[in-house]
Protein backbone atom coordinates (compact mmCIF):
# COMPACT_ATOMS: atom_id res chain seq x y z
CA UNK A 1 0.00 0.00 0.00
CA UNK A 2 1.26 3.49 -0.77
CA UNK A 3 0.33 6.53 1.25
CA UNK A 4 0.46 10.13 0.09
CA UNK A 5 3.35 11.84 1.78
CA UNK A 6 2.47 15.09 3.53
CA UNK A 7 6.10 16.22 3.59
CA UNK A 8 6.47 19.82 2.48
CA UNK A 9 8.30 19.89 -0.84
CA UNK A 10 8.77 23.66 -1.06
CA UNK A 11 9.58 26.33 1.50
CA UNK A 12 6.39 28.33 1.98
CA UNK A 13 8.36 31.56 2.47
CA UNK A 14 10.98 31.62 -0.30
CA UNK A 15 9.60 28.98 -2.65
CA UNK A 16 12.87 27.03 -2.88
CA UNK A 17 13.19 23.29 -2.31
CA UNK A 18 12.43 22.36 1.28
CA UNK A 19 13.92 18.90 0.95
CA UNK A 20 17.37 19.87 -0.37
CA UNK A 21 18.36 22.25 2.45
CA UNK A 22 17.00 23.55 5.73
CA UNK A 23 15.60 27.11 5.82
CA UNK A 24 16.27 28.39 9.36
CA UNK A 25 16.05 32.08 8.33
CA UNK A 26 12.73 31.47 6.59
CA UNK A 27 11.41 29.51 9.55
CA UNK A 28 12.34 32.35 11.87
CA UNK A 29 10.86 35.03 9.57
CA UNK A 30 7.65 33.01 9.25
CA UNK A 31 6.84 33.71 12.90
CA UNK A 32 5.95 37.24 11.77
CA UNK A 33 4.85 36.51 8.20
CA UNK A 34 2.17 34.43 6.53
CA UNK A 35 3.22 31.79 3.97
CA UNK A 36 3.61 32.98 0.36
CA UNK A 37 4.25 29.79 -1.63
CA UNK A 38 2.20 26.62 -1.64
CA UNK A 39 4.38 24.01 0.11
CA UNK A 40 2.98 21.28 -2.14
CA UNK A 41 3.32 22.82 -5.62
CA UNK A 42 5.36 26.03 -5.19
CA UNK A 43 2.65 28.23 -6.71
CA UNK A 44 2.44 31.76 -5.28
CA UNK A 45 -0.65 31.85 -3.10
CA UNK A 46 -3.22 34.64 -2.75
CA UNK A 47 -2.71 35.75 0.83
CA UNK A 48 -5.02 37.94 2.89
CA UNK A 49 -3.69 39.13 6.24
CA UNK A 50 -6.40 40.08 8.75
CA UNK A 51 -6.07 41.84 12.13
CA UNK A 52 -6.31 38.37 13.65
CA UNK A 53 -4.95 35.57 11.45
CA UNK A 54 -4.49 35.14 7.71
CA UNK A 55 -5.69 33.00 4.84
CA UNK A 56 -3.68 31.74 1.86
CA UNK A 57 -5.18 30.18 -1.26
CA UNK A 58 -3.43 27.96 -3.82
CA UNK A 59 -5.50 27.57 -7.00
CA UNK A 60 -4.61 23.88 -7.02
CA UNK A 61 -4.54 22.93 -3.35
CA UNK A 62 -7.10 25.21 -1.78
CA UNK A 63 -7.04 27.40 1.33
CA UNK A 64 -4.98 27.24 4.46
CA UNK A 65 -5.51 29.52 7.46
CA UNK A 66 -3.39 30.58 10.35
Amino acid at each position, binding site marked *: MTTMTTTELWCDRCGESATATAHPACASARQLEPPRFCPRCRRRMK*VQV*LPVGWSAVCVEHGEIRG
Partner: protein
Amino acid sequence: MPEILDQARTQVLGDGVGLDQAGILAVLNLPDEHLPAALQLAHDVRMRWCGPEVEVEGIVSLKTGGCPEDCHFCSQSGLFTSPVRSVWLDIPSLVEAAKQTAATGATEFCIVAAVRGPDDRLMKQMREGVAAIKAAVDIQVAASLGMLSKEQVDDLVDMGVHRYNHNLETCKSYFPNVVTTHSWEERWETLRMVRDSGMEVCCGGILGLGETVEQRAEFAAQLAELNPHEVPLNFLNPRPGTPLGDRPVVEGKDALRAIAAFRLAMPRTILRYAGGREITLGDLGTRAGLLGGINAVIVGNYLTTLGRPATADLELLDELKMPVKALSATL
Protein backbone atom coordinates in the same frame (compact mmCIF):
# COMPACT_ATOMS: atom_id res chain seq x y z
CA MET B 1 22.71 66.79 31.33
CA PRO B 2 23.44 67.67 27.67
CA GLU B 3 22.49 71.21 26.73
CA ILE B 4 19.87 70.07 24.21
CA LEU B 5 17.92 68.23 26.92
CA ASP B 6 18.03 71.29 29.18
CA GLN B 7 16.72 73.36 26.33
CA ALA B 8 14.01 70.78 25.55
CA ARG B 9 12.93 70.68 29.19
CA THR B 10 12.16 74.39 29.14
CA GLN B 11 10.92 74.74 25.59
CA VAL B 12 9.08 71.46 24.92
CA LEU B 13 8.03 70.25 28.36
CA GLY B 14 7.49 73.71 29.77
CA ASP B 15 6.05 75.61 26.85
CA GLY B 16 4.84 72.86 24.49
CA VAL B 17 6.98 74.14 21.63
CA GLY B 18 8.69 71.42 19.60
CA LEU B 19 12.40 71.35 18.82
CA ASP B 20 13.59 72.66 15.46
CA GLN B 21 15.65 70.61 13.02
CA ALA B 22 18.98 71.43 14.69
CA GLY B 23 17.58 70.46 18.09
CA ILE B 24 16.12 67.22 16.71
CA LEU B 25 19.50 66.37 15.18
CA ALA B 26 21.21 66.99 18.51
CA VAL B 27 18.85 64.48 20.17
CA LEU B 28 19.44 61.93 17.40
CA ASN B 29 23.19 62.33 17.98
CA LEU B 30 23.08 61.94 21.78
CA PRO B 31 25.55 59.36 23.04
CA ASP B 32 24.12 56.15 24.51
CA GLU B 33 24.64 57.24 28.12
CA HIS B 34 22.16 60.10 27.66
CA LEU B 35 19.50 58.02 25.93
CA PRO B 36 17.63 57.15 29.17
CA ALA B 37 17.38 60.85 30.06
CA ALA B 38 16.13 61.70 26.56
CA LEU B 39 13.47 58.97 26.75
CA GLN B 40 12.40 60.09 30.22
CA LEU B 41 12.04 63.67 29.04
CA ALA B 42 10.09 62.56 25.95
CA HIS B 43 7.82 60.53 28.21
CA ASP B 44 7.27 63.52 30.50
CA VAL B 45 6.41 65.63 27.44
CA ARG B 46 3.93 63.03 26.21
CA MET B 47 2.30 62.78 29.68
CA ARG B 48 2.06 66.55 30.04
CA TRP B 49 0.80 67.41 26.55
CA CYS B 50 -1.10 64.23 25.56
CA GLY B 51 -1.89 62.46 28.82
CA PRO B 52 -1.56 58.81 29.85
CA GLU B 53 -4.06 57.32 27.38
CA VAL B 54 -2.84 55.14 24.57
CA GLU B 55 -4.75 55.08 21.29
CA VAL B 56 -5.17 51.56 19.97
CA GLU B 57 -5.76 50.90 16.29
CA GLY B 58 -6.19 47.93 13.99
CA ILE B 59 -5.50 48.00 10.27
CA VAL B 60 -6.58 45.87 7.36
CA SER B 61 -5.69 45.66 3.71
CA LEU B 62 -8.75 46.08 1.49
CA LYS B 63 -6.71 45.68 -1.69
CA THR B 64 -3.34 43.98 -1.40
CA GLY B 65 -0.45 43.97 -3.88
CA GLY B 66 -0.22 44.87 -7.56
CA CYS B 67 0.47 48.57 -6.89
CA PRO B 68 1.85 50.48 -9.92
CA GLU B 69 4.14 52.63 -7.73
CA ASP B 70 7.76 51.78 -6.90
CA CYS B 71 8.28 52.62 -3.22
CA HIS B 72 11.50 50.67 -2.72
CA PHE B 73 10.59 49.27 0.69
CA CYS B 74 7.19 47.94 -0.32
CA SER B 75 6.34 44.30 -0.99
CA GLN B 76 3.04 45.39 -2.55
CA SER B 77 4.57 47.13 -5.55
CA GLY B 78 3.80 45.23 -8.73
CA LEU B 79 7.14 46.35 -10.15
CA PHE B 80 9.35 44.10 -8.00
CA THR B 81 9.68 40.32 -7.77
CA SER B 82 8.03 40.23 -4.35
CA PRO B 83 5.94 37.10 -3.72
CA VAL B 84 2.93 39.18 -2.61
CA ARG B 85 0.00 38.62 -5.01
CA SER B 86 -2.90 40.92 -5.70
CA VAL B 87 -6.04 40.20 -3.65
CA TRP B 88 -9.23 42.06 -2.65
CA LEU B 89 -11.07 41.69 0.64
CA ASP B 90 -14.86 41.26 0.43
CA ILE B 91 -17.16 43.40 2.54
CA PRO B 92 -18.33 40.72 4.99
CA SER B 93 -14.67 39.95 5.75
CA LEU B 94 -13.94 43.67 6.12
CA VAL B 95 -16.73 44.01 8.69
CA GLU B 96 -15.44 40.90 10.47
CA ALA B 97 -11.96 42.48 10.61
CA ALA B 98 -13.47 45.64 12.13
CA LYS B 99 -15.26 43.49 14.73
CA GLN B 100 -12.03 41.67 15.59
CA THR B 101 -10.33 45.04 16.00
CA ALA B 102 -13.08 46.51 18.18
CA ALA B 103 -12.97 43.39 20.37
CA THR B 104 -9.43 44.35 21.44
CA GLY B 105 -10.70 47.68 22.77
CA ALA B 106 -9.31 49.57 19.78
CA THR B 107 -11.07 52.81 18.83
CA GLU B 108 -9.54 53.13 15.37
CA PHE B 109 -9.88 50.90 12.33
CA CYS B 110 -7.88 51.89 9.28
CA ILE B 111 -8.75 50.53 5.84
CA VAL B 112 -5.74 50.46 3.53
CA ALA B 113 -5.39 49.86 -0.21
CA ALA B 114 -2.21 49.35 -2.22
CA VAL B 115 -2.89 51.85 -4.98
CA ARG B 116 -1.46 55.08 -6.40
CA GLY B 117 -4.86 56.57 -5.71
CA PRO B 118 -8.41 55.21 -5.65
CA ASP B 119 -10.37 54.41 -8.83
CA ASP B 120 -14.17 54.25 -9.01
CA ARG B 121 -14.23 50.58 -8.05
CA LEU B 122 -12.23 51.21 -4.89
CA MET B 123 -14.33 54.24 -3.91
CA LYS B 124 -17.49 52.16 -4.37
CA GLN B 125 -16.03 49.38 -2.24
CA MET B 126 -15.13 51.98 0.40
CA ARG B 127 -18.59 53.51 0.41
CA GLU B 128 -20.23 50.12 0.90
CA GLY B 129 -17.59 48.91 3.33
CA VAL B 130 -17.61 51.96 5.59
CA ALA B 131 -21.42 51.95 5.70
CA ALA B 132 -21.45 48.24 6.59
CA ILE B 133 -18.87 48.77 9.36
CA LYS B 134 -20.75 51.74 10.80
CA ALA B 135 -23.96 49.71 10.86
CA ALA B 136 -22.35 46.81 12.72
CA VAL B 137 -19.38 48.02 14.79
CA ASP B 138 -18.72 50.83 17.24
CA ILE B 139 -15.37 52.06 15.97
CA GLN B 140 -13.91 55.09 14.18
CA VAL B 141 -13.00 54.46 10.57
CA ALA B 142 -9.82 55.80 8.99
CA ALA B 143 -8.51 55.20 5.48
CA SER B 144 -5.26 55.06 3.55
CA LEU B 145 -5.85 54.91 -0.19
CA GLY B 146 -2.92 56.82 -1.68
CA MET B 147 -3.14 60.15 -3.47
CA LEU B 148 -6.60 61.72 -3.68
CA SER B 149 -8.45 64.20 -5.86
CA LYS B 150 -10.48 66.92 -4.17
CA GLU B 151 -13.70 65.05 -5.07
CA GLN B 152 -12.39 61.90 -3.43
CA VAL B 153 -11.46 63.83 -0.29
CA ASP B 154 -15.02 65.16 -0.15
CA ASP B 155 -16.45 61.68 -0.77
CA LEU B 156 -14.46 60.22 2.12
CA VAL B 157 -15.67 62.98 4.44
CA ASP B 158 -19.20 62.24 3.28
CA MET B 159 -18.77 58.52 4.07
CA GLY B 160 -17.77 59.41 7.62
CA VAL B 161 -14.07 58.60 7.37
CA HIS B 162 -12.67 60.69 10.20
CA ARG B 163 -8.92 60.38 9.61
CA TYR B 164 -6.80 59.90 6.51
CA ASN B 165 -3.37 58.32 6.47
CA HIS B 166 -0.89 59.31 3.82
CA ASN B 167 2.74 58.89 4.79
CA LEU B 168 5.47 61.13 3.45
CA GLU B 169 7.66 58.06 4.21
CA THR B 170 10.95 59.99 4.43
CA CYS B 171 12.31 63.52 4.20
CA LYS B 172 11.99 65.58 1.04
CA SER B 173 15.71 65.38 0.20
CA TYR B 174 15.85 61.57 0.38
CA PHE B 175 12.45 60.77 -1.15
CA PRO B 176 13.70 60.48 -4.78
CA ASN B 177 16.03 57.69 -3.62
CA VAL B 178 13.04 55.72 -2.36
CA VAL B 179 10.23 56.51 -4.82
CA THR B 180 10.51 57.53 -8.47
CA THR B 181 6.92 57.12 -9.72
CA HIS B 182 5.55 60.10 -7.82
CA SER B 183 6.96 63.03 -5.86
CA TRP B 184 7.06 64.12 -2.25
CA GLU B 185 5.21 67.25 -3.32
CA GLU B 186 2.34 65.18 -4.76
CA ARG B 187 1.99 63.48 -1.40
CA TRP B 188 2.10 66.85 0.36
CA GLU B 189 -0.71 68.12 -1.89
CA THR B 190 -3.00 65.25 -0.84
CA LEU B 191 -2.18 65.96 2.80
CA ARG B 192 -3.02 69.64 2.33
CA MET B 193 -6.42 68.78 0.83
CA VAL B 194 -7.14 66.31 3.62
CA ARG B 195 -6.29 68.90 6.26
CA ASP B 196 -8.44 71.54 4.57
CA SER B 197 -11.38 69.11 4.49
CA GLY B 198 -11.45 68.82 8.27
CA MET B 199 -10.45 65.16 8.31
CA GLU B 200 -7.69 64.38 10.79
CA VAL B 201 -4.30 64.05 9.11
CA CYS B 202 -2.23 60.95 9.83
CA CYS B 203 1.23 61.16 8.32
CA GLY B 204 4.45 59.40 9.19
CA GLY B 205 7.03 57.25 7.56
CA ILE B 206 9.68 54.60 7.77
CA LEU B 207 13.09 54.87 9.36
CA GLY B 208 16.00 52.80 8.09
CA LEU B 209 15.55 53.37 4.35
CA GLY B 210 19.18 54.44 4.05
CA GLU B 211 18.62 58.05 5.09
CA THR B 212 21.34 59.82 7.09
CA VAL B 213 20.80 60.99 10.65
CA GLU B 214 20.61 64.53 9.27
CA GLN B 215 17.84 63.42 6.93
CA ARG B 216 16.02 61.76 9.81
CA ALA B 217 16.07 65.14 11.58
CA GLU B 218 14.93 66.84 8.37
CA PHE B 219 12.01 64.42 8.19
CA ALA B 220 10.89 65.05 11.78
CA ALA B 221 11.08 68.81 11.16
CA GLN B 222 9.01 68.50 7.97
CA LEU B 223 6.39 66.45 9.79
CA ALA B 224 6.30 69.03 12.57
CA GLU B 225 5.66 71.71 9.96
CA LEU B 226 2.72 69.66 8.64
CA ASN B 227 1.54 69.26 12.24
CA PRO B 228 -0.42 66.01 11.77
CA HIS B 229 -2.91 64.73 14.28
CA GLU B 230 -1.07 61.41 14.21
CA VAL B 231 2.40 60.25 13.19
CA PRO B 232 2.85 56.51 12.62
CA LEU B 233 6.49 55.55 13.01
CA ASN B 234 7.63 52.46 11.11
CA PHE B 235 11.05 50.81 11.13
CA LEU B 236 12.08 49.10 7.93
CA ASN B 237 11.29 45.41 7.88
CA PRO B 238 13.32 44.49 4.75
CA ARG B 239 11.01 42.62 2.37
CA PRO B 240 12.32 39.90 0.05
CA GLY B 241 12.37 40.95 -3.59
CA THR B 242 12.23 44.71 -2.94
CA PRO B 243 15.16 47.05 -3.71
CA LEU B 244 15.63 47.54 0.06
CA GLY B 245 15.30 43.81 0.80
CA ASP B 246 18.93 43.51 1.92
CA ARG B 247 19.14 46.58 4.12
CA PRO B 248 20.02 46.07 7.78
CA VAL B 249 17.30 46.74 10.34
CA VAL B 250 17.56 49.90 12.46
CA GLU B 251 19.58 49.43 15.66
CA GLY B 252 17.34 49.35 18.73
CA LYS B 253 19.07 52.33 20.37
CA ASP B 254 18.80 54.41 17.19
CA ALA B 255 15.10 53.57 17.02
CA LEU B 256 14.64 54.73 20.62
CA ARG B 257 16.63 57.92 19.96
CA ALA B 258 14.29 58.58 17.03
CA ILE B 259 11.20 58.02 19.18
CA ALA B 260 12.45 60.53 21.75
CA ALA B 261 13.46 63.01 19.03
CA PHE B 262 10.12 62.79 17.18
CA ARG B 263 8.25 63.33 20.44
CA LEU B 264 10.41 66.32 21.30
CA ALA B 265 9.69 67.69 17.81
CA MET B 266 5.93 67.15 18.13
CA PRO B 267 4.80 67.36 21.77
CA ARG B 268 1.07 67.06 21.07
CA THR B 269 0.82 64.56 18.23
CA ILE B 270 -0.36 60.98 18.53
CA LEU B 271 2.94 59.14 18.01
CA ARG B 272 2.13 55.60 17.00
CA TYR B 273 4.19 52.46 16.91
CA ALA B 274 3.48 51.03 13.46
CA GLY B 275 5.37 48.31 11.58
CA GLY B 276 8.79 46.86 12.26
CA ARG B 277 8.97 47.34 16.01
CA GLU B 278 8.95 43.60 16.62
CA ILE B 279 12.21 43.03 14.75
CA THR B 280 13.88 46.36 15.57
CA LEU B 281 13.02 46.64 19.25
CA GLY B 282 11.67 43.32 20.48
CA ASP B 283 9.67 43.19 23.72
CA LEU B 284 12.09 45.20 25.85
CA GLY B 285 12.43 47.96 23.29
CA THR B 286 8.67 48.11 22.77
CA ARG B 287 8.30 48.85 26.47
CA ALA B 288 11.10 51.44 26.39
CA GLY B 289 9.39 53.27 23.52
CA LEU B 290 6.06 53.37 25.36
CA LEU B 291 7.97 54.96 28.23
CA GLY B 292 9.80 57.27 25.83
CA GLY B 293 7.19 59.22 23.90
CA ILE B 294 4.99 56.69 22.09
CA ASN B 295 1.28 57.02 22.93
CA ALA B 296 -0.44 54.83 20.34
CA VAL B 297 -0.06 51.34 18.94
CA ILE B 298 -1.24 49.24 16.05
CA VAL B 299 -2.37 45.97 17.53
CA GLY B 300 -2.68 42.65 15.75
CA ASN B 301 -1.39 42.04 12.27
CA TYR B 302 -0.19 44.51 9.66
CA LEU B 303 -1.00 44.55 5.94
CA THR B 304 1.28 41.80 4.66
CA THR B 305 3.15 40.81 7.82
CA LEU B 306 2.09 39.70 11.28
CA GLY B 307 2.35 41.54 14.60
CA ARG B 308 2.44 40.17 18.09
CA PRO B 309 -0.94 39.14 19.51
CA ALA B 310 -3.06 42.11 20.61
CA THR B 311 -3.27 40.60 24.10
CA ALA B 312 0.52 40.93 24.54
CA ASP B 313 0.35 44.68 23.88
CA LEU B 314 -2.76 45.17 26.00
CA GLU B 315 -1.17 43.34 28.93
CA LEU B 316 1.90 45.54 28.60
CA LEU B 317 -0.25 48.71 28.65
CA ASP B 318 -2.03 47.39 31.70
CA GLU B 319 1.27 46.72 33.43
CA LEU B 320 2.51 50.21 32.55
CA LYS B 321 -0.75 51.65 33.94
CA MET B 322 -1.51 53.32 30.64
CA PRO B 323 -5.25 53.31 29.98
CA VAL B 324 -6.50 52.49 26.49
CA LYS B 325 -8.24 55.56 25.06
CA ALA B 326 -11.99 54.97 25.07
CA LEU B 327 -14.33 55.69 22.17
CA SER B 328 -16.27 58.25 24.21
CA ALA B 329 -13.06 60.24 24.59
CA THR B 330 -12.55 60.39 20.84
CA LEU B 331 -16.04 61.38 19.67
